[in-house]
């Protein structure tokens, strides 16, 4: 029996993902996501005992670079796309939460 996502669950996920969605959308997405999860349910039931996870397809190790300066961007390039800036810095509206 797969996970049936409730609207509340979707609302919670949307908050985590910083996506503002309406209650109606919440319900719609709940249905669609549940359907997808049901489809991938087969994966959960597979016997993977003793099988290690693959996080990288490659066998690369220790890829390092020398501690040498490289050219950085000009300040106006950095701020070029900024929706709002002030004083050479990116401006954002009031932050409600403290930094985790």
């Amino acid at each position, binding site marked *: 029996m797969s996970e049936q996502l409730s609207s509340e669950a979707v609302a919670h996920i949307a908050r985590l993902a910083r996506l503002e969605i309406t209650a109606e959308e919440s319900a719609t997405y709940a249905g669609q996501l549940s359907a997808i999860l049901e489809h991938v349910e087969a994966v959960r039931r597979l016997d993977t005992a003793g099988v290690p*996870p693959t996080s990288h397809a490659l066998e690369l190790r220790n890829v390092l670079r020398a501690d040498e300066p490289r050219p950085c961007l000009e300040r106006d390039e950095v701020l070029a796309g900024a929706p709002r800036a002030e004083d050479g810095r990116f401006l954002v509206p009031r932050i409600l939460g403290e930094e985790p």
Partner: protein
Amino acid sequence: MTTSVGGATEPVGGATEIAARVRAGELSAASVLDGALAAIEGRDGELHCFNSLMGERARERATEIDRMVEAGQDPGALAGVPVALKDNICTRAAPTTCSSRILEGWTPPYDATVVRRLAAAGALLVGKTNLDEFAMGSSTENSATGPTRNPWDTSRVPGGSSGGSAAAVAAGMVPVALGSDTGGSIRQPAALCGVVGVKPTYGVVSRYGLVAFASSLDQIGPFALTVADAAAVLEAIAGHDEMDSTSLELAAPRCSEVLDDGADGLRVGVVSDFLADASPDCASAVRAAAEVLAAAGAKVDDVALPELLHGLSAYYLIAPAEASSNLARYDGVRYGLRVDAPDVETMNARTRAAGFGAEVKRRVMLGTYVLSAGYYDAYYAQAQRVRTIVARAFARAYGHFDVLLAPTTPSVAFAFGSKTDDPLEMYLADLFTIPTNLAGHPAMSVPFALGEAGLPVGVQVLAPALGEREMFRAAAVVEAGAPPGVRGPVGTRSAR
């Protein structure tokens, strides 16, 4: 390079031919550019392959190349070749939108490594092509700039997510283009548009400058009308890049060298499990291609790889998970769209709600869920283990075979809107391409037949990691054995 509007095109030649002639001073880069821009102008109104053009930069480059040829300097291996770039590849000072509202008008301050390499090789970068938003989709219907139409039948999709690049090549606007492939986004549109599409081994082509979708799966690769042209482009863009930690410490694979090697002694495995899930025309194309290879001296046999079919589910857990993290940066703070609000948290949420399309939102939420506390082990970690199972299945197969043969897609190009109601249905389009990405292997689609409604059918050649040479060798044989008329370029055709 093309000479007519609306009707059948008359190509001047593919990429290798153009380059040879430009290098020899027989053809000017400027005139090649003129031809490409004219073809685009003539037909893009209807097909919408391009999000934006880079005419000025291309013009400057063409002038420079012609000057270099005149001066006896080496203008590069792809001198004068017009190339289109998928609009998720960063181009300095030219818009890179990923076909998303959230990056509307954003111009990167830097070039992707593949862009620098193409430019250094003398290619003319003519424009940025349409895609499914953030490369999430299989039809290019998820684009915020509107869909791209399949030149073979404009009532049908070109495939996705690199639909714009595939269609641009298929329509003869440009001889080659770059796309990106995460679960099949080069190969699938290549098959639906009757062109060659290559996904290299993971790590062979630098991802620096490719807007990330699923980092452990994404690769950039070429579209072309011929296997030879695809090899030439791959050689120009591949090879180690110090800006990408996942880039293999190798030079570009020399695939052009093996194109005339033939198939004698090559061990070819036909993935029989896939055939059962493909439409008759797609399945029979694979059988026919297998016969071509056998006739050329290959040892062909069936191979059962049922584990590969689990790949789809694992992919739709891993890819959205990585995507949910990769797309977090689009928050309205530093670039792109911002929807104002009294506090930053609300600003983020409203910006992303307005900036992302429905499919992107779905995948971001699915990915967030899959990674969230309490679900990580059951979903994400489990999917990573399935990934190992898929890789091991391939490894067993490649113990007996040099390359594998499979359908690229379950069917020919489908009609607009026919799969958009049910996301799951759309996901099935990637059934045969996904396992390759999970394993990090190379694979390519070669146009081989015309199927239902006279639409292109591609055959997929798969190889083990770093098996590009065997792959191209087999692909060249398959291509040579294909009947005429199965591949582009085609004039724009409307539905009957």
